[in-house]
């Protein structure tokens, strides 16, 4: 028994800011002080509050140390672990009260959260199967194999109301039921897991894989039993090295413990899982494209039907679910369908994990019951917009989603409400934007992404999106006309209605939603030839104000010689020469250069 446990976050955010070094230093320092038999250092998955990383929690006190550096480690060991005196200056400020340290669960960031998919993230060591088992791990698989028929399993998942967390929100139980029954005499079926998280700004699947990989393995085995498959594949982004490593460790441990492989729990059920690395193609998030990629070919989607439940991977009946969907499954089996369906809204049950990023104080991972409002997530949990700026929009659904303006902040978030306001759930990226972000530029940003990622198979997506991007470029260059707006809307609808797969069908959403809610910004670009947020370079004017002291620094730093003026006299920018690089503004010591 150890008297203290030090949990060090080993998620991606904290690892990137050096948490591995901190853990090594911690272990060394503990040895130096002779505490190695009293204090244990544990590497965990993501705690969620990435903005404050690297993070460390010391139990039993539950002290939450934030932005820890290697230099802080000796102090934590000698003060806290040796002498029992909490190092207050490193504590997360929200947890410090006059009477001592407040529980983490009472802080604004954690108070409104409800962790189901993330329940083990930041709690257990993901590289140790026994810690997972100690938290009821593999109990659901045991229950399924020894007490339930496959039909009963599917029935529980159906009744729970679980819907796919990867984007479209298809009912998981229905998917499983189809795969079980549609081809009655199939000799082989497959269970696939989509861990190719492609939304640029979403990292919840990664955190589940890094923090609780066994939950996904267990759920896949349950799915295998339910549909009658003996082989699973996890398709994971090669850019997620920590997740890949922990998955492989987890698979090997599960095999050693007899929880994967032949005759699991002596039930006669065989199931094994292999990892396949994605190679950087957003379109592979689409189910038929992903399966084609596992087959080792160019990941192009194909028309459906036949749906994968009938003809999927290697031509066999297959299911594909996303990481977060799977992470919910063992809990549903253990706690029952009613427990799960009691959370959330009428048609969207359970919780949803969001990757909160952009212009927000508490960047990180949050899991809330469906039906929580955007305002609660952004203002209460997220801590609002930093630097006193004003909220402009929240973007959900990544390149397939849309921008939600302030007037919809009180909408309860679920699958259907988000679609009704022109966005979508997507995988759960939630990027906050403030008044300094130009919405035309954001639409262009997402469209550049989809144009780059379009596989090129069907014309509406390959050429339509390119033309759409050209129109956007025309507008941000200051050459747009009002007629272009109508053309864009028409083109958007054409692309949505005629593209082969989800990528093309949703690609115009960022354009449509910004046109719907931020038309005034488009009009400013077209009619007034200005960019209200001063982002679009061609529409920005740099001007020198009366605060200029004539120090000549700007003129010396201008790469094109566009600035003239005498020493100690106000300088002037020749707009015809200016290339809008902003070097003058960066170099001015008197804040005498402004963007207009």
């Amino acid at each position, binding site marked *: 028994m150890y008297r203290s446990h030090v949990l060090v976050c080993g998620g991606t955010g904290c690892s990137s800011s050096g948490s591995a070094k901190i853990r090594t230093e911690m272990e060394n320092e503990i040895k130096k002080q002779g505490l190695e038999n009293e204090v244990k250092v544990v590497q965990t998955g993501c705690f969620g509050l990435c903005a404050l990383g690297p993070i460390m929690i010391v139990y039993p006190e539950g002290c939450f140390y934030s932005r820890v550096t290697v230099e802080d480690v000796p102090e934590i060991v000698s003060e806290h672990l040796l002498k029992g005196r909490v190092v207050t200056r490193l504590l997360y400020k929200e947890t410090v009260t006059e009477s001592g340290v407040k529980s983490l669960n009472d802080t604004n960031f954690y108070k409104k959260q409800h962790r189901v998919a993330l329940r083990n993230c930041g709690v257990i060591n993901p590289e140790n199967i026994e810690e997972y088992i100690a938290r009821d791990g593999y109990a659901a698989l045991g229950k399924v194999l020894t007490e339930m028929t496959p039909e009963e399993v599917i029935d529980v998942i159906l009744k729970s109301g679980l819907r796919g967390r990867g984007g479209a929100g298809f009912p998981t139980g229905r998917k499983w039921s189809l795969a079980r029954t549609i081809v009655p005499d199939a000799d082989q079926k497959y269970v696939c897991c989509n861990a190719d998280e492609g939304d640029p700004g979403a990292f919840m699947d990664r955190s589940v894989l890094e923090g609780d990989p066994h939950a996904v393995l267990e759920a896949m085995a349950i799915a295998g039993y339910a549909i009658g498959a003996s082989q699973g594949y996890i398709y994971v982004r090669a850019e997620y090295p920590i997740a890949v490593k922990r998955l492989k460790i987890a698979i090997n441990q599960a095999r050693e413990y007899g929880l994967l492989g032949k005759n699991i729990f002596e039930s006669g059920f065989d199931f094994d899982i292999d990892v*396949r*690395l994605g*190679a*950087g193609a957003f379109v592979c998030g689409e189910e038929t494209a992903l399966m084609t990629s596992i087959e*080792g*070919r160019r990941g192009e989607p194909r028309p459906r039907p036949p749906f994968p439940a009938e003809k999927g991977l290697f031509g066999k009946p297959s299911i594909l679910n996303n990481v977060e969907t799977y992470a919910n499954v063992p809990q549903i089996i253990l706690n029952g369908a009613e427990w799960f369906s009691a959370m959330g809204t009428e048609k969207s049950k359970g919780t949803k994990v969001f990757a909160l990023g*952009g212009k927000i104080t508490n960047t990180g991972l949050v899991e809330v019951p469906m039906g929580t409002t955007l305002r609660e997530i952004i203002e209460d949990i997220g801590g609002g917009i930093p630097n006193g700026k004003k909220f402009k929009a929240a973007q959900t659904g990544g390149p397939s989603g849309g921008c939600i303006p302030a007037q919809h902040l009180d909408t309860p978030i679920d699958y259907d409400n988000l679609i009704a306001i022109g966005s979508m759930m997507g995988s759960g990226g939630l990027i906050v934007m403030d008044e300094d972000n130009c919405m035309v530029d*954001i639409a262009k940003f997402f469209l550049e992404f989809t144009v780059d990622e379009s596989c*090129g198979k069907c014309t509406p997506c390959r050429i339509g999106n390119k033309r759409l991007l050209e129109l956007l470029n025309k507008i941000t260059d200051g050459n747009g006309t009002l007629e272009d707006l109508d053309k864009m809307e028409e083109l958007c609808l054409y692309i949505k209605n005629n593209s082969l797969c989800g990528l093309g069908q949703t690609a115009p959403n960022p354009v449509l939603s910004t046109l719907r809610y931020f038309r005034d910004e488009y009009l400013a670009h077209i009619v007034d030839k200005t960019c209200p947020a001063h982002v679009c370079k061609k529409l920005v004017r740099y001007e020198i104000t009366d605060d200029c002291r004539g120090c000549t620094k700007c003129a010396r730093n201008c790469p094109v010689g566009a600035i003239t003026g005498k020493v100690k006299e106000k300088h002037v920018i020749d707009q015809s020469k200016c290339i809008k690089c902003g070097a003058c503004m960066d170099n001015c010591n008197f804040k005498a250069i402004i963007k207009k």
Partner: protein
Amino acid sequence: MGKSTISKIPFKGTAEQEQKLREYIAANKDVQGSLMPIMQEAQEIYGYLPIEVQKIIADSLNIPLEEVYGVATFYAQFTLNPKGQYRIGVCLGTACYVKGSQNVFDKACSELGIGSGDVTDDGKFSLEATRCIGCCGLAPVMTVNDDVYGRLTADDVPKILEKYKNM
């Protein structure tokens, strides 16, 4: 997608590398869907996938070279050109982008005199605009090989590059 330039740099693969690749192919060629894992291993061994290596893979698997080339050019991870000694990635994922990573990227381009996907003439640096690398709490983020630099402004870029120029 759609990067199809064939490397002008002469192929310098060694017999040792080829043997390693052939051993991996022999062990995996009968696994269903093994082409991509083999190509990933090949890129691990050689650092990139020159046409010579693609030919070895096509011949050993008894499939047309066109199929290997098709896969190599479809996925962003596969590269037909060698990377620099220091691989620089600037994250242009959404969270980094709204916090100004485009300026960081533009600065890296102008400092190195190359664009995305290019390598400097001395082979020291290569530059890439990457997608979300999952540490949005540090946005905007830049990586140099395995080192991560966060909460950047464009002004930080020259200082960081300087460190590696002299290494």
